[in-house]
């Protein structure tokens, strides 16, 4: 089946089976490897992307369900004000150990901050608990989210900057 997808502001035509999870379309058809496979069952969050601005698990989303919604991945999130701030904070706090979970962490955090400019610890707990970090960099993840949020001006509701 042919699908026309808008990923990080660009259109991509892919020819894949209708039940193919978006995760594998991104990784193996579109060749965007930043979105990661961890469990294939919606349990780890490594595959988190945004569809129409919502954080979703790409391993649980069939390509046929994406429709016309814009898809944003870790490769594109830096083009949004929220995403850029998070990536900067992630580096400033030196969060990364192995790094395999971090794309998913940043994507979940970006959805959180887009909806909630200054999340409390409880808000962070609620949003981020589905993202496993097997290296357990959790305190730095929490710190980086707060740092990105502090005094943050995300622009107009964190919408993508022009030209993204």
């Amino acid at each position, binding site marked *: 089946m042919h699908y026309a997808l808008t990923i990080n502001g660009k259109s991509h035509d892919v020819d*894949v*089976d209708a*039940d*193919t*999870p978006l995760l*594998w379309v991104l990784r*193996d*058809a579109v*060749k*965007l*490897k*930043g*979105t*990661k*496979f*961890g*469990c*294939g*069952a919606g*349990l*780890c969050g*490594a595959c988190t992307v945004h569809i129409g601005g919502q954080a979703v698990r790409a391993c649980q989303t069939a390509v046929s369900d994406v429709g016309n919604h814009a898809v944003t*991945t*870790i*490769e594109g999130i*830096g083009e949004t004000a929220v995403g850029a701030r998070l*990536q900067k904070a*992630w*580096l400033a706090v*030196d*969060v*990364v*150990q*192995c*790094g*395999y*979970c*971090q*794309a998913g962490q*940043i994507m979940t955090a970006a959805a959180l901050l887009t909806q909630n400019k200054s999340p409390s610890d409880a808000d*962070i*707990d609620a949003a*981020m*608990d589905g*993202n*496993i*970090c*097997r*290296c*357990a*960099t*959790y*305190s*730095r*993840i*929490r710190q980086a989210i707060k740092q990105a949020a502090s005094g943050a001006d995300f622009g107009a509701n964190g919408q993508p900057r022009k030209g993204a």
Partner: protein
Amino acid sequence: MTLQDQSFQPQALFNVAKLPTSRRAFLKAGAAAGGGLLLTLTVPLLVKAAAGAASAGASTLNAYVTIAADNSVTIMSKNPEIGQGIKTMLPMLIAEELDVAWSQVRIDQAPLDAAKYGRQFAGGSQATPLNWEPCRRAGAAARQMLIAAAAAQWNVPASECTTSEGRVLHQSSGRSVTYGAVAERASTLPVPDLAKVAVKDPKNYTIIGRSTPGYDSPKVVKGEPLFGIDHEVPGMLYAVFQKCPVFGGKVVTANVNDLKKMTGVRDAFVVEGGSDLHGLMPGVAIVADSWWRASKAREKLEVTWDEGATAAQSSAGFAKQAAAFRGQAPQNSLRNDGDVAAALSSAAQVVEADYHYPFIAHAPLEPMNCTAHVEGVKVTLWAPTQNPGPGRTLVAKTLGLDESKVIVNMTRCGGGFGRRLDSDFMAEAAWISKVAGAPVKLVWNRTDDMQHDFYRPAGWHFFKAGLDADGKLIAWQQHFVSFGKNGNYARSANMESTIFPAGRVPNLSMGVSLMPLGVPTGPLRAPGSNALAFVFQSFIDELAHKAGKDPLQFQIDLLGKPEMLPGRGAGFHTGRARGVMEKVREVSGWGQRKLPERTGMGVAFYYSHLGYFAEVVEAAVGNDGQIKINKVWAVGDVGSHVINPTAAENMAQGGVLDGLGEALNQKITIDKGRVVEANFDSFQPLRLTQAAPVEVHFVTTDNPPTGLGEPPLPPAIPALCNAIFAATGKRIRSLPIDTALLKA
């Protein structure tokens, strides 16, 4: 065989330990191990690059250092990066002595090349102790060559030249030149004797001891393709591999012809494999034009298995066998000091306790995968591996090729924890590529990963200890039930007989009984220690409470005078253990704070992988038994320098939390020879909401720096269990912690 010898053998990480036949045999091995590790460090061969190996305009000074005309410095990082930060840390050592600014440095992953780099692996927290001297000396040697080149150019004595941030300076004439400008000349000079090159006075360090963010992190946060699973080869196909759910089972028949008709499936075949659980095992390979299609075909796979003997084994059966051993004398004695029986009968108090811990899995977040391309007699692999050398050996053996025909490219690993010390997935990928006649990327799913791991072995410990009227520990009797046969432990199922309080209790016996195991086991982060710390440090805490003593002070008293006792590496130093205990007492406010009801603090320490860690956990237990960890204080002594403080803190926090996750959540169950747990719902790593703040401190001592991947983990588990006892009066003697037992 000394520990040093072993550390350069592939088997060394696997603890294939034979039981000592006598106390004397043990002492001999212990003594050899004592001196070996730190005294006979190998120095890397400074192999000159072959002409043309360096890129145009750049000069290679030794296996690690290449300097370009524009003064950019490329440093090779020899070991696999698994999240331990080695790709940043080893080049820091070189850059320090090379005397360049960190901003000049580019880092490349070194290829697998034993002639240049010695053994290249990520395991046993060994990278720091093994490379602290050699990497600094490699940097210092290159600096000396650059000075010599500049001095020759200026016609001044080298002794009048100094260096700073990538320049050679001649103070008296005011001249200076960049390294880049003299690198070519330097590369033609003889390589100095590494043992004799001058190294910096540590007080002049500008890079060592300064927090340096992960070199590849800017790429990680943008999702760049760094990991093994991200690798692509033109014309590549995708593979899945189904092994028998029962360990060691073989394929009888499989409907591969049906699968071959499915859309996108290019090939499906039975792999005969062998019987080595660490190598290529029997199974069915499905190769398709996408991983998803290969996975879908797998759902239609029907296999008749010959399950073999392990189908009769189960966790319940192991527990029954352990209970039977409990009533018997140990099969083998590990240690026998004094007269335990007499001491127990004269003791004022005898304390008995049974401890148990389960099998657990590694579950690094990046599933096992490998891309392989077999072309005739040559094979190229791209593998997220902790142990590329033995991986190459296994692939060569499996395909019947010469090792020189096997090229292993190390990729970044999405976690390791010891799982990627084994190379089974590399052998599978290579074999499938060979049969399919195409480059193939094999990717396991999470269930493959969880059900075909090399597990941390389960174990049982039956204790009897005696306290005298003053509460002094006078007798310790320990019967360890583990796995193995013919006097050989299963991998990572051994126990050293030097573990504290051994050597500090006048009457002490340790013995072991082994039962056979068909389930493959292997090293999990802090192998041995991740289980034994729980057992030893919890039971000592029990004894302190029975003695009516403060548990922290009880351990300090038991440590006694500062001295070296037999143990791993140079030995176990009671003074260093005391040092971290004293510091954790101070930073945690031990005994100083009034805690709410059902809240308690627990303490533990452990010496593992040459590092000393003492930790205090403060935990609150709800009336429903739910545990909330408020805070952890961790104090480490890993020698004279903490090389990269930001990474060290991150690693220590991760290690502590990993331990707490094991204690709270993790268990692998064997039923009919197979693993029951299949994904992150039934086998849970720690999650964000369970992650307590971990405050990390380091005590520096005048000892060579050692690693941090492992030592922070072991004490976290008993510190938590001891905190739960302080909060509730309930003693945790079995993992994972059963919160139902903690209800008010």
